[in-house]
């Protein structure tokens, strides 16, 4: 790709924020913990049959999901023929992991879009649901960590990936999610959510499964390595300092205009009022004869 034939080989001594080390440590710990959680029960489960997990998932599904999505995940239509809850037969386990893991499902009330909120199901329950929905038909499985994790890359590999990711991000993602990943408006009350500070796994799953009304970016559309590049770029955005000060929500010229009026003009008019205001007066007379 011509955008990326880099001639520059010099390494940056880019200094990360003071918290970056701590963050890295915390991330590492969390990942280790996550890995353990993901792998350890899996080993134990080899004895248990997968079917048991699916059965468990089905029970949870009937209680929490079937009202909208149908008893077998076939979807529910309203009387007027529109979708009440979409069919889940071919969405795959990755979709369940994303929806349940970010708290979007179960929905608190029907609406245009499911907002991100507190997670309801525990990790085990989520695993069971994933197994059940995954068993209903085709659809992507929960991605392996190596697909989205950028931890084992060398610094130069990482940087190359970030540059590549920046271009893929700008070509495919900014239109809806905005140049900083702050989100944007979609038709009829829909919105593209903020995607900064989101767990890389969920970013990957979102691209893979196209939650809500988002398009999918299947592996045939954007190859896994390029999805990782986007994730690397998003991580870089999170890690880089705000070079120019407060970002004002990262919404572009609207928030800048509001700041110019409220802070700039507001403060300067305030100063003008002070400059022209009458100073305090004394009731005393000046002793000497008036000039």
């Amino acid at each position, binding site marked *: 790709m011509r955008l990326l034939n880099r001639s520059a080989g010099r390494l940056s001594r880019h200094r990360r924020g003071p918290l970056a080390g701590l963050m890295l440590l915390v991330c590492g710990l969390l990942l280790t913990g996550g890995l353990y959680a993901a792998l350890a029960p899996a080993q134990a489960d080899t004895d248990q049959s997968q079917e048991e997990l699916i059965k468990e998932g089905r029970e949870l599904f009937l209680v929490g999901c079937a009202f909208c999505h149908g008893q077998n995940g076939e979807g529910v239509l309203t009387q007027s023929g529109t979708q009440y809850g979409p069919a889940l037969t071919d969405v795959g386990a990755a979709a369940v992991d994303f929806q349940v893991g970010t708290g979007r499902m179960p929905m608190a009330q029907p609406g245009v879009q499911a907002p991100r909120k507190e997670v309801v199901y525990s990790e085990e329950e989520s695993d069971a649901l994933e197994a059940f929905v995954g068993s209903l038909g085709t659809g992507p499985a929960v991605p392996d960590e190596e697909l989205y994790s950028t931890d084992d890359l060398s610094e130069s590999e990482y940087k190359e990936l970030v540059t590549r990711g920046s271009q893929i991000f700008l070509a495919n993602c900014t*239109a809806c999610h905005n140049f900083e990943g702050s989100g944007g408006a979609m038709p*009829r009350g829909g919105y593209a959510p903020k995607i900064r500070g989101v767990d890389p796994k969920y970013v990957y799953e979102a691209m893979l499964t196209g939650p809500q009304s988002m398009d999918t970016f299947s592996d045939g559309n954007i190859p896994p390595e390029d999805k990782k590049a986007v994730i690397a770029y998003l991580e870089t955005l999170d890690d880089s300092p705000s070079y120019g000060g407060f970002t004002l929500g990262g919404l572009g010229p609207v928030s*800048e205009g509001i700041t110019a009026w409220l802070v700039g003009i507001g403060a300067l008019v305030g100063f003008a*009022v002070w400059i022209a205001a009458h100073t305090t007066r004394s009731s005393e007379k000046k002793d000497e004869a008036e000039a």
Partner: protein
Amino acid sequence: MSVDVSKVATTNGSEPATPTKGAQRAGTIATWADERLGLGTAMKKNIRKVFPDHWSFMLGEIALWSFVVLLLTGVFLTLWFDPSMTEVQYDGSYDPLRGVHMSSAMASTLEISFDVRGGLLMRQMHHWAAMIFIAAMMIHLLRVYFTGAFRKPRELNWVIGCLLLLLGTIEGFTGYSLPDDLLSGTGVRAADGFMKASPVIGTYMSFFLFGGEFPGDTIIPRFYAMHILLIPGLLLALIAAHMLLLVYHKHTQWPGPGRTEQNVVGYPMLPVYAAKAGGFFFIVFGMIALMGGLFSMNPVWKYGPYDPSKVTAGSQPDWYMGWPDGLLRIIPAWETHIWGVTLSWNVMIPILVMPPLMLMVLIALPFLESWITGDKREHHLLQRPRNAPTRTAIMVALMTFYGLSWAAGGNDIIAIKMHLSINQITYFLRAAVFIGPVIAFIITRRWCISLQRHDAEKLLHGYESGVLVRSPEGGYAEKHLPLPLEKAYTLTARDHDPEPEKVEQIEASGLEGRKLRVRRLRARLQALFFADNVQKPTVEELHEAQHHAEHELHELESQIAAGPNRHGPADH
């Protein structure tokens, strides 16, 4: 017209002009300069020139000083900025874009931002100053309009001010486009669409401006020349003319004791006014520096270089272009295909018709008003907005239209921040831009008139003292006290509105044809313009009211003295 030659001889004499003994150096220089420039005459008049003091008179100063900041920061930026669209591979410090192809303009903008110490600060200050420059011009314009300061002899200065607003906007747009990042390129792309929508010559305009097909490689050098040479030159010239006329006319002032149409009361240029204006320059400069350091502005590195296939959510122009952009968003899909040609009303109305129309309406306002009212006198005393209800209402209606269009320009941000649907917002605003200004006009007019009525009440019956008195019968009344003389005078220091011409009179006057129709129209507009205004009381009304009030007060007081609440205020 005769030349005074009496002094030529002495200055050309053989004697040195400098006094020989013990002259101070400053004096020497002053004399030297005066003999060549004649400074004394000019300074004699102006060094103690009087400027009235009021906060609202300093709004234009904000614009002036932010313009100075723009010149200073702009010069700094030119030292590094390379206005070229030649493609280069970025090799600077910002990692995520290293290796990406971009124009030299974008690469040098990144260099200013990342590799020049204080460069990002200067870039942000320049941009904040531009936003404040135009905002300050606008609030200054509103102040001038609402107080009637545009009236004779200042109409031409009003026109110059409107042109400054236009030039400032163009200057802002060309500057916004220079970095060649994704956001500014999207703006230029839209500008290309605007040009192409122009009837007959649209495509030719676009091809000539871009030096070929969009985006070409000449638009940034061309905008740069306009941005740093042509428009700043025009701005400087017009600002100079604006200030010269201000000095010639002398500043308007608020009415009050001792302040008349014939004089101007205030502080002398030296020292107080110079100190306040000079101090304000540092304050404006300092505020802009603070904003430049604290608030991120246009982070071009996140937008990336311009690419006609890319776009970002929240693609908006800077605020001053927001209202035509809003109209572009809410205009229905009107496009006519007729006789093989295309008329894009959906572009022409919002961007090629409305902004020039708005400017023309603004420029015409003073002339329109003086034609309707028939007022051809000079005015140096300001009017309170309430004392010209129709005028105030006209501007509030225009502001409402502007504000709603402006909101439309941010409809996507409103949608996500307030959890609304952009479609609903758009439908609402399509109606609101028509209905809103009408409602605003009516409300403002009635509000002004009720404020006028309130003023008249205060004059005639005194102000509400807040002291409640209970009569022996158990009734309550509030004690009204007469206004202090200065306040009362200030309230009456305004014009009587003229009696509108009677339509019947005009019809009987023997005028015919077009002249008659014009006069009749004018008389009707005049009647509407002044309708329901409350006039200040006449001498007789005031006397009678004062008499009455004194009587009432006296009665109240005797009741207090006799009544149950003797512990009430004992004075008076």
